[in-house]
């Protein structure tokens, strides 16, 4: 029995880079996503703006 943790940068329609963590569980032989976490960082310059303008 194994669990897989995947992580990817994906490009959303607004052409921003997000981070995504996907966690899988095997159910009756098929892998399914049991947990998903998607985000962008935020700026700590007092604005707390979501950082949708970062590039890898």
């Amino acid at each position, binding site marked *: *029995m*194994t*669990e*897989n*943790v995947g*992580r990817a*940068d994906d490009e959303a329609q607004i052409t921003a*880079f997000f*981070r995504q*963590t996907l*966690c899988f*569980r*095997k*159910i*009756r032989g098929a892998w399914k996503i*049991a*947990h998903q*976490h998607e*985000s*962008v*960082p*935020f*700026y*700590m310059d007092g*604005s*707390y*703006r*979501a950082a*949708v303008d*970062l*590039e*890898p």
Partner: protein
Amino acid sequence: MQHHQTAASERFSQTDDETQIRALIDDWAKAAGTFDIDRVMAAYTPDILAFDAIAQLQFKGAQAYREHWQACSAMCPGPMIFEVHDLAIEAGDDIAFGHYLVRCGAVGEDGKEDAGYMRVTFGCRRTSGKWKIAHEHFSAPFDPESGKALLRLEP
């Protein structure tokens, strides 16, 4: 997790993994709350890949992440608040994942707490019998209308 009949020893072994990972996260959280960076880093694999809530899209490897921890430590001189809530873990043979909410912030000079909740996902790998964190992802949601992080949400 696949649900099937297991021998008593296998069931005990699963619970044992969760116990070990809870202890790992508990120790890590205590270290994080005091910026004991050596002790924080001891919880990570050398090839950790981290998504933090601030500063960069990602941190590749322990050295890069250590430097980020050091920079964060410089930003927060006073006592930190770092509470793990609702920790959930799913463990396989040598890979596990988990998630929790963290209430984090600082105590001001006036003694008042300034803290909010973020969400955390982590992935662990067992090597030579020991669980370590190979991936962690910290974030706050953001409001697409204002474009700002939502740092005062409550569970």
